[in-house]
């Protein structure tokens, strides 16, 4: 078993605090994604697990063993760096063998492991080349191969796809998912790209502002965000946020007044809601253009035709912006006055601190 446990881990550079009391339990074989904006400390956290950064406070366990005071090589983890960090003067084979040579692995064992990994990653024909003779995608594979041959307890991947072009990124993403299915190793993947997080993760750790906002499966994070930050960071387009003018209890569930004369019956239990200013959150797919009766009125600013669906950027009567969805072959044009039907069951309320209130699960 190679669970990774973090207990109240803190890090600061000088007087600048980067991470404060971060705790989590990563189960063996999980594909965990650290997701967050630049500067949220996600790479630092990964480097602390790897042993490349000192932990100021707290404890890190890998496979039951406390490792936060151990040097990187004694933690049994392998890392794939953002720019791959291949040894430029060594051939691909030497790059992959280096770690095994250093622990005195027998030569034929090294050859066997490198050949196996190369076959798995389809880089056998590149083994005698130098990194400079490889494309970005090939270097990426070599970096992963270098990690695989060491048979580590966990793979740490620091934004490994960010240097690839869009098409290759999608392909490599898929291959990474397949690789994880095949070798069933614990993987921690750092990214600021929510699509990568959603498609790869067993669980996503959303980070912001020196700490963890939410840990959950991709669909939990998407449909039941714990905070307003998570709601705005995950999902494209970002969730709509509409200031709530009044809250009332309608049969135990909150009824929300917003945007002038509009109101929406939600499925959120009213009992948990106190006084104060709330914000209504609703995703574009739960705000659909309707051509019949009902819905709220809005004036269209911009129409984005994405093929299979159309995004309509509009304004409510009080000027609040809202993004709604329509069918791919939508007839809506900029300047039109449309009606938008909101799905109250999918609505979320956020209090002033950003905490989310959901419909009962």
């Amino acid at each position, binding site marked *: 078993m190679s669970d990774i446990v973090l207990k109240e881990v803190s890090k600061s550079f000088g007087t600048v605090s980067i991470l404060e009391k971060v705790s989590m339990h990563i189960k063996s074989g999980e594909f965990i994604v650290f997701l967050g904006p630049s500067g949220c400390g996600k790479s630092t956290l990964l480097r602390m697990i*790897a*042993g*490349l950064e000192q932990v100021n406070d707290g404890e890190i366990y890998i496979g039951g063993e406390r490792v936060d005071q151990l040097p990187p*090589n004694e933690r049994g983890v*392998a*890392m794939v760096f953002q*720019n791959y960090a291949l040894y430029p003067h060594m051939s691909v084979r030497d790059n992959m063998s280096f*770690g095994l040579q*250093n622990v005195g692995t027998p030569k034929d064992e090294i050859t066997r492991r490198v050949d196996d990994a190369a076959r798995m990653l389809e880089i056998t024909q590149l083994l005698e080349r130098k990194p400079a003779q490889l494309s970005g995608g090939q270097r990426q594979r070599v970096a992963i191969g270098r990690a695989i041959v*060491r048979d580590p307890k966990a793979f740490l991947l620091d934004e490994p796809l960010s240097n690839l072009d869009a098409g290759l990124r999608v392909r490599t993403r898929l291959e990474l998912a397949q690789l994880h299915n095949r070798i069933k190793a614990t993987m921690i993947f750092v990214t600021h790209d929510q699509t990568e997080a959603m498609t790869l993760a067993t669980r996503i750790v959303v980070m912001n502002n020196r700490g963890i906002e939410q840990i959950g499966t991709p669909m939990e994070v998407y449909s039941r965000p714990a905070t307003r930050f998570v709601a705005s960071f995950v999902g494209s387009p970002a969730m709509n946020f509409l200031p709530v003018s009044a809250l009332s209890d309608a049969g135990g569930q909150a009824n929300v007044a917003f945007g002038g004369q509009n109101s929406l019956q939600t499925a959120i239990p009213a009992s948990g809601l106190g006084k104060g200013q709330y914000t209504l959150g609703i995703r574009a797919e739960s705000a659909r253009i309707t051509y019949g009766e009902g819905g709220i009125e809005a004036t269209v600013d911009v129409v984005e035709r994405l093929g299979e669906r159309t995004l309509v950027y509009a304004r409510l009567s009080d000027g609040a912006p809202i993004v709604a969805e329509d069918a791919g072959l939508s007839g809506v044009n900029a300047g039109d006055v449309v009606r938008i039907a909101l799905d109250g069951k999918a609505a979320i309320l956020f209090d002033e601190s950003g905490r989310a209130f959901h419909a009962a699960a």
Partner: protein
Amino acid sequence: MIRNQRREWAVAFLLVLPFLLTYGVLFVWPTIQMVQLSFTDAPLIGTGEWVGFENYIEMFDDRRFWTAFNNTAYFVVLTVIPNTLIGLAIAMMVSRLKGWQQSLILAMFFLPYILPVSVVYRIWNWMFNVQFGILQYPISFFAGETINVFRTQWMFMPAVALVTIWWTCGFNILLFLAGLRSISPDIYEAAALDNANRWTIFRKITWPLIWPVTALVLTIQLILQLKIFDQVYLFVQGGRPDPSMVMVQYIYTMAFQRNQGGYAAAIAVALFVIVIVFSVLQFQLLRARGEK
């Protein structure tokens, strides 16, 4: 964009012209003159009779020429590789420091390099002075007596080599430091995760990656040290110059003290050829090794 090629060439030529003129007048022409002169029996000033290869034949039979050649070669052996290795070692230590500490230490190592040779001579002559030189304390501790280092034949070249390394090391440190900085820190982190210890990291990562800089430093050093003159000339003052004579010094003696311009030119040509052959050969060899 369509350009007027002829016009561009004209502008380019005009811009290069001042350099070409200076280079031609101050380097190419004197070099040709020197080669011509080496085939004559000219004195220091004025022309001489054409004597063919006589100067060169004489040179090969000249015991003092061979002394100068051997001394120069010995000096090169004493300085080039040690100076390069010391430069690399210090650069690696300095590169571990950060911020102002690094700047301060680097400045301290670089400071001697900006001193003129006469000042360097003064400093070290004092330090080695038999009566009040500070270095006589360790010397008498180990040797049991004070030693006049620059008057002791077997100590002369190593002592001058030591002074030269102290004097010129700063520049090598600077080159190596630039080279070390160009190695991505990620590579060292990857090596740390790859179970490499410090010695392995140096042997397998730093040394091969810094090799182009090492080759450059070795070549610069070789050219510089083959032309050794000032230090030997200064430190030998008051002693017997002949046994510690180096090639440039011999050229100087022949031309300016013995008034044998033609012969001095022949030795100068020999040195010129040695410098060219050795430096080109060395650089190519080193580069080839690095690419292997």
